[in-house]
């Protein structure tokens, strides 16, 4: 890993966050849910979306470890905004993995538009729950509830999974404009409000044949690749959120007095702060470890679980240590706590990730 490059990436990310995220993060969190189109455009201009794509595909050729560092740095300012870029880069990376220069990732790159993913469950088998797809009149007709899409913009794209009449899984790339009423409005959520969730429900929707990304096992593999790459960026964002919560807590603990001394000098609170620091380090380590294993879904899921569980603990303790101030919007720590909890649910909840990890490990050993 090139440490100079990582430092440069971190500096770029810090400057970007200070210029574009810091002034907008609180307002985005508080406003009616909507995709942050302007911030997304700035990120595209900075090349965040194609950061880990090969140069042959128009990308910067960065490694996943570098992407992890980038997202972690951005997440210190706003985990939701960081995830907008993380999700975009992860999706493009997974779509590009097939190596088709004229494939869907190339189309997406050319359009520079956001792309969201509806993750089917459970992904430990090919027979995941998904809307029904029937071939008719040269199109795929989709019916049923697909799930929630994260990172969908009104003018972007959505990756969805469906099941053919024979039970065969399908992966499709759909234009959000075409989806119309099938794509629900952005919904108010717990956290990561820069990346609103929308419900996707098909009512005999006709998808053109060109929307098809993969069928059969390759479709399941694509689902798993998306899950892997999203998990990597979730782990990175969680590590960033935990680091930021730690920083804010140490600042507060050094300036607040209780019982005639700084609260950082109370041994119980030192114990709490020490555990928070260790948890934040564990999140950072988990994110880095997984990024160094780009093809390992288990490692990515384990990292996402470890990092987001740690972030939830750290951020909840940060609110606790700040007391009433931590619970108020002004201080921003409550937002980090909500974001951390939302990260524990993306792309699947940590509780469900546990099941998936064990199933994957079982398959490996079979």
């Amino acid at each position, binding site marked *: 890993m090139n440490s100079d490059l990582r430092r440069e990436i971190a500096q770029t990310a810090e400057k970007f966050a200070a210029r574009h995220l810091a002034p907008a993060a609180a307002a985005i969190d*508080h406003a009616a849910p909507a995709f942050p189109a302007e911030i997304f455009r700035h990120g595209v201009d900075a090349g965040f979306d194609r950061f880990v794509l090969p140069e042959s595909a128009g990308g910067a050729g960065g490694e996943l470890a570098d992407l992890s560092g980038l997202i972690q740095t951005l997440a210190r300012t706003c985990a939701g905004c960081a995830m907008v870029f993380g999700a975009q880069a992860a999706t493009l990376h997974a779509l590009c993995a097939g190596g088709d220069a004229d494939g869907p990732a190339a189309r997406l790159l050319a359009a520079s538009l956001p792309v969201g993913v509806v*993750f089917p*469950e*459970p992904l430990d*088998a090919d*027979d*995941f*729950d998904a809307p029904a797809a029937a071939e008719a009149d040269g199109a795929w007709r989709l019916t049923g*509830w697909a*799930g*929630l899409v*994260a990172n969908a913009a009104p003018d972007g794209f959505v990756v969805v999974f469906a099941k053919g009449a024979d039970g065969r899984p399908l992966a499709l790339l759909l234009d959000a404009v075409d989806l119309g009423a099938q794509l629900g409005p952005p*919904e*108010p*959520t*717990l*956290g*990561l409000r820069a990346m609103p*969730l929308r*419900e996707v429900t098909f009512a005999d929707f006709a998808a053109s044949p060109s929307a098809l990304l993969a069928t059969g096992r390759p479709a399941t593999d694509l689902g798993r690749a998306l899950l892997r790459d999203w998990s990597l960026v979730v782990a990175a964002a969680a590590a960033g959120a935990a680091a930021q919560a730690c920083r804010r807590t140490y600042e507060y603990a050094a300036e607040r*007095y*209780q*019982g*005639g001394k700084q609260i950082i000098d109370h*041994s*119980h*609170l030192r114990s*709490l702060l020490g555990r928070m620091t260790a948890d934040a380090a564990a999140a950072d380590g988990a994110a880095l470890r997984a990024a160094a294993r780009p093809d390992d879904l288990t490692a990515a899921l384990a990292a996402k679980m470890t990092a987001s569980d740690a972030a*939830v603990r750290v951020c*909840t303790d940060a*609110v*606790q240590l700040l*007391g*009433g101030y*931590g*619970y*108020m*919007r*002004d201080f921003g720590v*409550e937002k980090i*706590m*909500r974001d951390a*909890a*939302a990260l*524990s*649910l*993306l*792309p*699947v*909840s*940590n*509780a*469900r990730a*546990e*099941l998936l990890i064990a199933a994957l490990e079982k398959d490996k050993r079979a």
Partner: protein
Amino acid sequence: MTDFLHVEIGKRSLFEMAPRLKVLAAHAPEYAAELEDWQARAREYGDKYVRPKALEIDRKCAADARYFDWDVIKKAAPFGFLSMLAPKAVGGAGQMSTAFAIVMEELCAACSGVANVFGANGLGVSGILLGMDFYHYDHALAELAAGEKRGEPVIFAAAITEPLAGSDVEDPKYLKTAKLMTEAKPTKGGYVLNGRKVFISNGSIAKFVNVIAPTDKRRPLETQSGFLVTAGDRGFSVGRVEEKMGMKACPATELVFEDCFVPERNVVGRAGEALRYVEYVLGGSRGPVGAIAVGTARGAFERVVDFAKRKKIGGRRLIDQQWVQIKLAEMARQIHLARQAYLDACMAFDFFGIPKLMKTLTTRLLLDATPSFVRKSAPLTAMLRSDFTYRQTQALFAKNIDAEDLRRIQQLSSLAKISGSDTAMAVAYDALQIAGLEASLHRLELEKIYRDAKLTQIYEGTNQLNRHNLFVNYFPGEGENEF
């Protein structure tokens, strides 16, 4: 997609939730029946009026922190929750902390934000009750009960926390070095209050606020008193209304005092003794806060059980999947144990704490057998506030209240508060995990409950402070030189 707004959630009976109350029913059937009745009232109000509006209120408060839904509080008037702690002699229900806690659990299962309005009111009322000044009973508490009967809620609040002193003002050890801003300087006929209080639940909607302040902030341990301030008093104003993460339906506000004159008669309890009263109040209120937290946990539990019954993954309902069953069982275990903890605290307080004084012959003669107009008369008020009466009250206290019991109440109340609030957070988080990404949606309520739950670990003394309080009351004499 499942949402819960129109779902009837199955509930269990009081005796199933707390088997000890079935035992109680064998010995004190009327009292047990009263507790059942309060639970039934709270369920009816919660199901009929609170749950259907909970999300809407949360959203409105998020858009404007000053929004307060008077309508939902007015709907509670026939149920009597605001005045349930006030003595029957002044129009209340004369209930104690156990009934109050049972009501709070039910209301919180519907919406802990709305419930907190009643909880914070109870905290304000408790301070007045424990002050045992019948003048305040016959004025402020009587107005509370009368207002409720008219359908015009009169709300109480307690103002303790300061901008630079949160836990400091709730612990005698820390109070002596607390950086206090609020002070009540003695003046002719009363006191002049200056300073600020922060994060005061019900602060912007309360008619009566029990403000805890020292008369000499360099000696808060010796000079802390309670001052009953009324909305509209000159020099008393509401500052900022905080934008909170959760429990938004109950406003938390800054209260500002600028040369606010408080007449002598509005001192709550004995001047200089507020520290003791605060301890008594918190000993009585932390049990119900445990109940608030248990109700919050139950809200998450009931909703996620319903979700698990409806949601299928891989062709099977979540509730049919073993990992979900084990998680739900663990949630049920935590909720059950935390409930027993708050019942321990509340019953200990009710039967061995200050409420015992309300049952002495002297108190009952004054409250139940003496007409209100006699009690309110100036000569009797003066007599009741005399040094002689104070000494008699102290003697009554010494005769009826065991110091060991008070210590145990402190232990149990902190234990209940910690157990309940940690359970609320753990259960709310596990509910998110079971429901998955959908849990993030506001309309599923689980995210709101997660936001609400966090406050229970912070207010009424942080859990750190309560653990410390538990320690010092569990190991008296130890830990004098802590680090």
